[in-house]
């Protein structure tokens, strides 16, 4: 079961598979669009989705009628019919959804790329729109309206004991991670500080103009021990849309294409929606390791070749854990890698979350990480890494997850 993961032995196919030549270099991201990020949009989630999609279509230099595919998050309340009706899209040839909360961000791109590569659709929109701050906050446990029966059998083993919020679930893994590898709250604090620093270069970030110090992090209140308030992402109202098409069509469009070098997704044994506590080892992220093995195999590059990373970062410990699982450092060394912030800030050896990430820019369920990855490839980020050629983005952690490598 988990043996191959624990022994770090991947049964990789050496022979190129279909996706190696169908998607690799043959599909590109050609349009990105977003709304402002705020704590109260004052508009419907449907309007937010429409605004982001319209912006992405304009960014790509397309017309709305060119769109013939939509991939949504299962968690998103906007359905395809409402979107095509509002936007006047004549017909869709491809539509579908990706599950597992923020785990869906990169998989939407994988679905879209598959549709484009196989010729099912020409221009596919992936989007996420949510009034998560002014509406239903995912970080909180809903109040008195809560159903008194857990929503599924695996939550039924957790909810009656008060174990029912994402931060509590991640804290359980973090406690074990700290125990096994000696990671400290200060080391996690550096992740928070550096991402906040990056947000100071991004006028769209919710925490623009609000830098923090390590002391601020250490003095921020404990939410679920061992995680503090400044270990958490920022609940946001906002929307992001991304347009995927073939490399061939991309040549004639307005923007410099961000070619997909590799895109992969994975589950792992005994995974649940962030409560995977029954595994032999809970201190790391097996899905991410499996995904990474496939991602780098298809890409034909190694972690050393990556110039910028846009990690999914709902909570600070997820960044060191991903560094370890994706081979950017050894197992157990991720927190030390982030300490002091020198290596992970722009100008360092491996800049992470250049727009501020979910911790400091906005929490659009990982889609803002993908649009920032595209800006880094285009060379248009407000916190640009010089000569960024390969940019990696990931989706939600501790759930079925995905990873994406874009190239110039």
């Amino acid at each position, binding site marked *: *079961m988990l043996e191959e993961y624990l022994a770090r032995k991947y049964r990789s196919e050496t022979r190129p598979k279909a996706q190696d030549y169908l998607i690799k270099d043959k599909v590109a991201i050609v349009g990105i669009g977003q709304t402002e990020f705020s704590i109260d949009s004052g508009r419907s989630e449907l309007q937010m989705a429409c605004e982001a999609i319209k912006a992405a279509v304009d960014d790509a230099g397309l017309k709305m009628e060119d769109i013939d595919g939509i991939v949504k998050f299962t968690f998103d309340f906007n359905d395809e019919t409402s979107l095509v009706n509002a936007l006047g899209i004549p017909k869709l040839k491809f539509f579908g959804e990706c599950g597992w909360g923020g785990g869906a961000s990169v998989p939407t791109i994988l679905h879209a790329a598959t549709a484009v590569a196989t010729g099912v659709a020409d221009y596919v929109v992936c989007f996420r729109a949510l009034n998560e701050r002014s509406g239903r906050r995912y*970080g*909180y*446990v809903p*109040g*008195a309206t*809560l159903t*008194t*029966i*857990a*929503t*599924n*059998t*695996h*939550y*039924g*083993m*957790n*909810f*009656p*004991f*008060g*174990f*029912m*919020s994402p*931060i*509590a679930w991640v*804290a*359980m*893994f973090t*406690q*074990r991670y700290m*125990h096994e590898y000696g990671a400290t709250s200060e080391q996690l604090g550096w992740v928070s500080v550096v991402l906040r620093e990056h947000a100071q270069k991004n006028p769209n970030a919710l925490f623009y103009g609000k830098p923090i110090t390590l002391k601020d992090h250490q003095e921020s*209140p*404990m*939410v*679920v*021990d*061992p995680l503090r308030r400044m270990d958490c992402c920022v609940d946001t109202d906002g929307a992001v849309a991304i347009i995927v098409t073939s490399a061939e069509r991309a040549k004639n469009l307005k923007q410099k294409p961000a070619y997909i070098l590799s895109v992969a997704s994975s589950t792992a*044994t005994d995974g649940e929606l962030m*409560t995977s*506590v*029954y595994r032999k080892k*809970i201190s790391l992220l097996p899905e991410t390791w499996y995904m990474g093995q496939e991602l780098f195999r298809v890409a034909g590059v190694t972690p050393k070749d990556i110039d910028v990373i846009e990690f999914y970062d709902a909570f600070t410990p997820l960044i060191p854990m991903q560094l370890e699982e994706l081979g950017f450092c050894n197992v157990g060394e991720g927190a030390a890698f982030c300490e002091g912030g020198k290596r992970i800030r722009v100008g360092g050896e491996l800049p992470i979350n250049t727009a501020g990430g979910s911790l400091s820019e906005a929490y659009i369920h990982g889609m803002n990480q993908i649009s920032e990855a595209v800006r880094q490839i285009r060379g248009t980020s407000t916190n640009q890494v010089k000569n960024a050629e390969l940019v990696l983005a990931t989706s939600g952690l501790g759930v079925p997850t995905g990873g994406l490598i874009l190239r110039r």
Partner: protein
Amino acid sequence: MAVEYFKGIPLIRPLIDLDNQGFWEAVKNHKLVIQRCKDCGTYVHPPRPCCPNCNSFKKVWAPASGKGEIYSYVNITYEKVGYPGMMCPHAVVLVELEEGTRLITNVVDMKPEDIYIGMPVEVVFEDIAPDLTLYKFKKSKGVKAKKGKR
């Protein structure tokens, strides 16, 4: 110190289905059981239709010793991320049973700051409501209090 419940806020019930019914029925009778494969002997928790090791559908509810140790734990200090019916702060612990499976649960006789990874614990049962019994864990006999990491 056990978890305290607020009166008037409905408590969350587990979702009981045909796969995990035997587990929760045993808990109601103050017994802890683990699904065990009749063919290969693998302990399986949470309960599932078949054995993930050999795919056999033959299984029994094997009595658990009720002993184990704390594998990980958290302390919920901010009320909005805990259940409104439970008083904060309170700890949630992950107990690894002697049989090797794990349970998310609460502790009954200790403060959150006294909990540490590796602490030997044993099961107790709490009848919280006429139709809700939960398994919880207390420090095993003979275990001296050891200061946690904070």
